[in-house]
């Protein structure tokens, strides 16, 4: 159970971010040069691993757990609510859903507008775009791995969860050789947003002096409350949009 506390959110969040990173890598590799693209993506993974290793270990070793849970909990509430609100708006139809095929097409088009690939040696455009794309998408994963891992005292399982997600996305990407448009990204973001908000509220609450009534078991109650509230919010967003649409169509007297 304790292992899953850190591993599951890290796995789900990583799956979402690595799907997005895969789209960038595929677009660059297909249109320009695979070798430079893969070196760029690999370099970004090394940098991310170093960030998680250095910051994760430093935080676990140096920061007292009470301070850690307050600060990390606060960050997780902010970050979790951002993911959750975005997912609710997408599920309710207020904003467009993430479309990997459309993003891939836009990336390929942008890459074709770049100067031609050099005949020999590294293509630094491929390297830079792949490096930057994987690093930026991976930073969110690193943030979640470090915060969850450190606060739950489960840095290893969090890293394992993220690594498994990365390998899974990579394996499927190699197998299908196209963007993973069928992955239910919004559903995953919904789940991750719920988890981050739940754990963030719990840990930050402990940090400011809240006594949760059923100790750690309160996490399940909080998750259920936030899940029910979010599903209700999706309905309300849909109703508001429908009401706004009807009002616009109503004849002017």
């Amino acid at each position: 159970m304790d292992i899953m506390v850190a591993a599951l959110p890290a796995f789900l969040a990583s799956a979402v971010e690595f799907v997005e990173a895969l789209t960038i890598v595929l677009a660059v590799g297909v249109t320009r040069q695979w070798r430079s693209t893969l070196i760029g993506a690999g370099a970004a993974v090394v940098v991310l691993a170093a960030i998680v290793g250095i910051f994760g270990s430093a935080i676990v070793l140096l920061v007292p757990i009470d301070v850690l849970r307050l600060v990390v909990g606060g960050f997780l509430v902010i970050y979790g609510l951002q993911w959750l609100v975005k997912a609710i708006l997408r599920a309710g139809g207020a904003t467009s859903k993430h479309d990997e095929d459309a993003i891939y097409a836009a990336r390929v088009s942008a890459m074709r507008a770049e100067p031609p690939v050099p005949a020999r040696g590294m293509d630094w455009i491929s390297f830079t775009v792949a490096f930057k794309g994987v690093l930026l998408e991976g930073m969110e994963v690193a943030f979640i791995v470090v915060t969850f891992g450190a606060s739950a005292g489960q840095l290893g399982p969090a890293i394992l969860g993220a690594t498994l997600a990365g390998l899974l996305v990579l394996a499927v990407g190699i197998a299908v050789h196209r963007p993973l448009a069928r992955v239910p990204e919004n559903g995953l973001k919904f789940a991750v947003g719920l988890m981050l908000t739940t754990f963030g509220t719990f840990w930050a609450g402990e940090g400011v002096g809240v006594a949760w009534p059923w100790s750690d078991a309160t996490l399940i109650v909080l998750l259920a409350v936030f899940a029910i509230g979010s599903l209700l919010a999706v309905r309300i967003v849909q109703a508001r949009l429908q009401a706004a649409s009807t009002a616009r169509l109503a004849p002017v007297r």
Partner: protein
Amino acid sequence: MNSTAGRYLRAFGAFWYDFLVGDRPELFVGSIAILAAVWVGVQVGLQPGLASLVMTVLVLGLAAASLWRATRPTRGR
């Protein structure tokens, strides 16, 4: 050298701003305000058990407020 350092610093700041504040500043400000309010409440005698209920309701309220803000009709549309 200074301009390069400044550029990296600005980019670093912009990254974290985008990461934590983004296009929903109310979630950033609101979350900090909730934590501060609950901390003050506990310090002045709010029962820690009751504080758990207050905190949960405030977090739900903040999400609702952000959703309301995102879906409100724009003037002149």
